[in-house]
């Protein structure tokens, strides 16, 4: 029932907000993006090696190694939660993936005999269906991430535990399980599908590292989900005012569980990709990466109080961290300075945003 308007509203008292005071221009992401652009210019003049193809590939690859997990944790941060278990999750998923791959590729074992057979020379192991082992092992790696994400989400959304404590516990649980299943030794991807695995995780397409391609695809998907689906809208509403979200009929519990599952899956995928680049999944892999991931998200403009954040910010945060690290190396500054500098930047980024919001 649309009521006909007797007269259209005239905005006599309410001005339009200027374009530079809204959207990305008024966000921390915008300021950090500007800072990043300036940093790139400075780097260009500071080091002739910075803008070489090799170095750019290196930078793109390195920041992609934390950026996918940062996308995931950004979902959680937007709802006003936090996930500290991403570092451990990366390791555990990678470990399960390479262990399953190795297990299924052993011709003698009961599981292996279904998937592989010996070649005529009696030494080479051949896959019955090329790629099947790879698929199953990656699904296994993501499967454990899914379970951990569900447990996180259940404890937080249904049982009402604090996200910080729940995921801190999960950090320890998952890391511990990694040590248990591998006996503390870690594991290596092996068998006939290992070559596919390396191609899919650390190869490149026309000079572009594949992790970077995955990152771009996932970031675009995330942008669509956040801004053009009702799920995304509910994620923002949850971070803005959880009580309002509940009263307006948003399925708060389901949305919360979903964001923790998304975060765990992103971390799992990230871990699998890192293990392809490392060539192994050591038991201490990605230790304390959760701090880098959360730092990147926060620098990029995700607000830990909830309600603000996005894929662009997550990527900008990761790029900034990586450019600084890379720049310090090129400038022959001890890379031990990196951590200190990252800390300064986290505080600066948040400070600038605070000053800006005071001014308007």
């Amino acid at each position, binding site marked *: 029932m649309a009521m006909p308007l007797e007269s259209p*509203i005239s905005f006599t008292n309410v001005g339009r907000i200027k374009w530079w005071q809204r959207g990305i221009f008024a966000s921390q992401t915008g300021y950090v993006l500007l800072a990043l652009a300036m940093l790139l210019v400075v780097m260009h003049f500071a080091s002739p090696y910075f803008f070489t193809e090799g170095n750019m590939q290196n930078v793109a690859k390195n920041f992609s190694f934390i950026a996918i997990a940062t996308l995931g944790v950004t979902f959680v941060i937007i709802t006003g939660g936090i996930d500290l278990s991403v570092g451990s999750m990366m390791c555990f998923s990678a470990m399960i993936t390479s262990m399953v791959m190795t297990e299924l590729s052993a011709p003698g074992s009961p599981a292996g005999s279904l998937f592989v057979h010996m070649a005529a020379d009696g030494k080479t192991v051949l896959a019955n269906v090329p790629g099947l082992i790879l698929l199953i092992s990656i699904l296994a790696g993501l499967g454990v991430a899914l379970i951990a994400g569900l447990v996180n989400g259940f404890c937080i959304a249904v049982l009402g535990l604090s996200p910080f404590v729940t995921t801190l516990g999960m950090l320890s649980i998952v890391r511990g399980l990694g040590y248990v299943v591998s006996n503390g030794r870690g594991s290596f991807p092996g068998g006939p599908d290992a070559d596919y695995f390396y191609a899919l995780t650390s190869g490149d397409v026309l000079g572009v590292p594949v992790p970077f391609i995955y990152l771009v695809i996932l970031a675009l998907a995330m942008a669509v989900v956040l801004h053009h689906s009702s799920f995304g809208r509910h994620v923002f509403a949850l971070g803005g*005012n959880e009580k*309002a979200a509940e009263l307006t009929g948003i399925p708060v519990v389901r949305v919360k569980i979903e964001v923790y599952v998304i975060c765990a899956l992103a971390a799992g995928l990230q871990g699998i990709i890192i293990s392809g680049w490392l060539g192994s999944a050591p038991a201490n892999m990605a230790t304390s990466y959760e701090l880098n991931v959360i730092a990147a998200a926060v620098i990029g403009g995700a607000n830990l109080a909830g309600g603000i954040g996005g894929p662009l910010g997550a990527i900008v945060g990761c790029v900034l961290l990586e450019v600084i690290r890379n720049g310090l190396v090129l400038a022959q500054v001890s890379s031990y300075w990196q951590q200190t500098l990252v800390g300064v930047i986290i505080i600066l980024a948040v400070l600038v945003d605070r000053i800006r919001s005071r001014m308007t």
Partner: protein
Amino acid sequence: MTKAEATPVLELTGIGKEFGAIRALHGVDLQVQPGEVVGLMGDNGAGKSTLVKIIAGNFRPSHGEIRFAGNAVHFNRPVDARGVGIEVVYQDLALADNLTAAANVFLGRELKRRFGPLALLDHKAMAARALELFGELRSETRPDDLVKQMSGGQRQAVAIARTRLSNARLVMMDEPTAAISVRQVEQVLGLIHRLKEQGVAVMLISHRMPDVFAVCDRVIVMRRGEKRADKPIHQTSPEEVTALITGAKEAA
């Protein structure tokens, strides 16, 4: 449903509610007619909010029956009440500051367009409908502005526009004028008049006597969990209502 004119939109009979040993409400009967503005008054602890929360589906009554437009209804959650046409404007407005006005109006019931297997938000349609609703409410509110940047009156308009999405038949407003400026109070009372013009029944829960006397057709006074008075506004006076609220006068 034959005599729709005479059927009250909301009819409560013998509503009671206990929280453990505490009796919050006892034997409340009341009726609200379509297009009627009813003021619900009472001191803190008189049972107003409990009554509102029962009608809104936050609590289930311990006793009694709720009939909505002639049919008995049982609400388990606020969404159920909204489903039959009861909308609530909460005291804190239940708005998400980080979203736009249009996003808040459509929160939880977004309009979508299908793109193959995907259902994506229809931003244009939502903004257009929100602008239309703000127009009906005579509020200068832009659908694309963030609620964070809005005045109290605009925020109120957003919260009220939300109730106009689904052709609500009863809108309950919990202290809509408690926290806003004098000029904005005028706007909100204007909004209540617009709802009434469109045949919507309004229940106004308020502490502010002048507001109740300015817009209500009838006033209901609660005290100690019971209904103490239910009178047309022109047959009573602020003095009498005050006496009823404080208990200086037992009932009227």
